């Protein structure tokens, strides 16, 4: 009997230990917001002097999470304090973003914003959000992944972007999307708006699903991002015909941008950047922005990101704010096509 009881106890302890890593993190996040309610007066001038929490609004192991964890050591080096990555998934990102916006603006809680997902949520009339772009202090952009327009390797109706567009002006073609007004959906809508094509987007739950429907021939054109497509392009499993960016991607040097292919410029990309709650004191903004600039531009960090297939695009606070505002404007301009 005694043995059994101790066995169950051990079981419980292990359970506690395994859960501890996550609960510890959030406990510390709570304590930071608790302590700092007395604002910066208690901070004896020096910032930062305790761990900084970076909120990621998606699951551990996802793209944003990997991005954050890759930057983590370099940011720690610049700031001189530990940096914790905390996952607050749920609500298509809004759980985490709301958490960032509502955190104490003491500089110890910052987080990742994902656009255009954030922008489309702001414009979606059925979404009751309670926060806005003004709820944040914009720090810096970290990565950008341009959209990729992809056809099957054995496609015979069209073999390059120009032929695809010519074909799509006369015939209806289906494209993939992974979320209403998500970055890939916006590519389709912008093509229809600017190039007068007849693409019809089908919504899928994620890239895995959209890609298998595309490879199986159920959907004509795959719209995805450079990061998702480049290695399969190099393996000739599919063919990226154009990317929706200002310049060629270093991952796909043989693929033109929409403009280079002879059409009006179309820019659509998903970005991940860092923000803090609004009301963050100016001197702390500067310290954080400085550290982020150095960490993001660290060559070792950039090399690691490249191995992961993620394109680093540093933008300072002002530039990043403009980027976000542009995304919101873009989605607003497509309201009619979205039926919002």
């Amino acid at each position, binding site marked *: 009997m005694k043995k*059994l*009881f101790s066995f*169950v106890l051990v*079981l*419980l302890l292990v*359970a*506690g230990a*395994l*859960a501890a*890593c*996550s*609960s510890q*993190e*959030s406990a510390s996040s709570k304590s930071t917001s608790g302590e700092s309610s007395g604002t910066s007066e208690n901070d004896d001038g020096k910032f930062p002097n305790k761990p900084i929490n970076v909120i990621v609004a998606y*699951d*551990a*192991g996802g793209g944003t*999470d*990997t991005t954050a964890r890759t930057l983590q050591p370099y940011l720690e080096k610049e700031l001189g304090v530990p940096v914790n990555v*905390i*996952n*607050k998934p*749920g*609500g*298509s990102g*809004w*759980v985490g*973003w*709301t958490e960032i916006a509502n955190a104490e603006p003491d500089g110890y809680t910052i987080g990742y914003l994902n656009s255009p997902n954030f922008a489309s949520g702001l414009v*979606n009339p*059925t*979404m*009751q959000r*309670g926060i806005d772009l003004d709820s944040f202090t914009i720090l810096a952009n970290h990565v950008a992944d341009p959209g990729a327009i992809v056809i099957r390797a054995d496609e015979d109706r069209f073999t390059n972007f120009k032929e695809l567009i010519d074909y799509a002006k006369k015939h209806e073609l289906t494209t993939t999307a992974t*979320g*209403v*007004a998500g970055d890939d959906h916006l590519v389709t809508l912008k093509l229809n708006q600017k190039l007068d094509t007849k693409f*019809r987007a*089908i*919504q*899928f*739950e*994620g890239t*895995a*699903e959209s*890609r*298998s*429907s595309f*490879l*199986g*021939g*159920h*959907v004509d054109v795959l719209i995805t991002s450079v990061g998702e497509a480049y*290695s*399969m392009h190099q*393996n000739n*499993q599919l063919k990226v015909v154009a990317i929706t960016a200002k310049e060629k991607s270093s991952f796909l040097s043989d693929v033109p941008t929409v403009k280079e292919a002879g059409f009006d410029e179309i820019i659509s990309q998903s970005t991940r950047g860092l923000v803090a709650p609004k009301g963050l004191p100016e001197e702390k903004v500067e310290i954080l922005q400085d550290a982020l600039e150095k960490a993001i531009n660290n060559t070792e960090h950039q090399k690691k990101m490249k*191995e992961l*297939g993620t394109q680093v695009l540093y933008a300072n606070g002002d530039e990043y704010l403009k980027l976000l505002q542009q995304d919101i404007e873009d989605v607003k301009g497509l309201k009619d096509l*979205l039926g919002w």
Partner: protein
Amino acid sequence: MDAFNLLMSGFEIALTWENLLYCLIGVSIGMMVGILPGLGPSAGTALLIPMTFGMDPISAIVMLSGIFYGSMYGGTITTVLVNVPGEAASVITSLDGYPMAKQGRAGVALGISAIGSFIGGTVAIIGVAVVAPQLVKFALAFGPPEFFALIVFGMTMVVGLAGKSIIRGSIAVVLGLVLAMVGMAPGSGVVRFSFGIPHLIDGLNFVTIAMGLFGLSEILLGIEQQMKKPEKPPVVKGLFPSRKELRPSLMSIGRGTGLGFFMGLIPGTSSVVPALMSYSIEKRISKDPKRFGNGAIEGVAGPETANNSFCGGALIPLFLLGIPSSATMAVLLGAFILHGLQPGPTLFVRHPDFVWAVIASMFIGNLLLLFMNLPMAKMWAKVASVPFKLLFPIIIAISIVGTYSISNSLWDVGGLLVFGLLGYFLKKADIPVAPVALMFILGDLMEKSLLQSLALYKGDFFAIFTRPLSGTLLALSVLVITLSIVAGFKSKKDNLVDVEA
């Protein structure tokens, strides 16, 4: 016999002592992750990826995939012992597994699922090794319409779980569908029933629903029972099924293996679909379907096997197409790329040592799990005989910690409590809870694939019937329902047996 030689060289790599060690670590962690409700296999794998950064890619993947299938084993343990299914597929196991534990036969239930999982897992791996390239076409043939038809077919299977009263069963089914509707609508992005709560934009979380409806409600009922008339915990009986049970369970294992493997090929299928189908098939062909829901061993053996061979089959789309068929697979895919291995048709050609070593390690891992689980099943089974006043608080504590870890927030803990109470009242009203949980998953998948199909055919519903695969599946569904109705009319006594979950 080229594949055989390659497999042998794979074993050579997998049997080096460090890879063996990583395999052991992987499956042990996986078991732990599976036992802890809430901390699902995908989170477990993701959290450990950083640990593998400095490792050789083969060792890394060997360990990570060990976590993956190890967690499948572990999930069964909590389901059978305390009726807390940590993941979707285990819901089915709880139908007969938990009643078996109540009869003191938890050891048998765990033993047979360990054996079934081993057979299902290894046969699926052999399948991957031998026929993988030929099957890729089959995987891709499943577009949205086929998927929709498959889910509809799956739903007809839920009818069998509806319980003794059609009305009560229907209430459960509709409740499940309503819960599935919360959150952003696929296709239009309209947010439904979120009441301005950010957590609800993505819909409800399955783990909270399953743990509340099954686990917590069971504890509430148990506490009530204890206050009225204290019951002694069941005495633990043997580990092996009786000779009479052995043959039917082996047959179920065989059927579950084939079913799970083919379902695994279809990207995007939830592992609950093969488990549900296997259960339903077992019940239909059983001579005495009344036993199901009251501790029928086939009801544990079939679905558990199907679940594990599903995981094996799912490796084919992952290896050859780079398409993960579940969240955990997606995490594994990430690990592949991180270690410089690009999945695709060329993976077998460019990194044969890697592919075959991983396949070989899965053999070994499954064997390790079998050796770990058979003796341990007896030990685990004793948990069921812990006095309730000690056991209940521990289960509640583990459940709460587990749900908290889903998104590091108390929101999910609240969900657990709400669904626990809901489950308690449903059980009091004799409404089966299994259909609620199953319809929650299937409803979501069905809505999505229906909307995709309609978007593809510009709103023409009947076009779905014109495609050979989807047409056949839909015709089968109609047939199953018609047969059920006819059978219902024939025997005045309702032939739908009560499956109290």
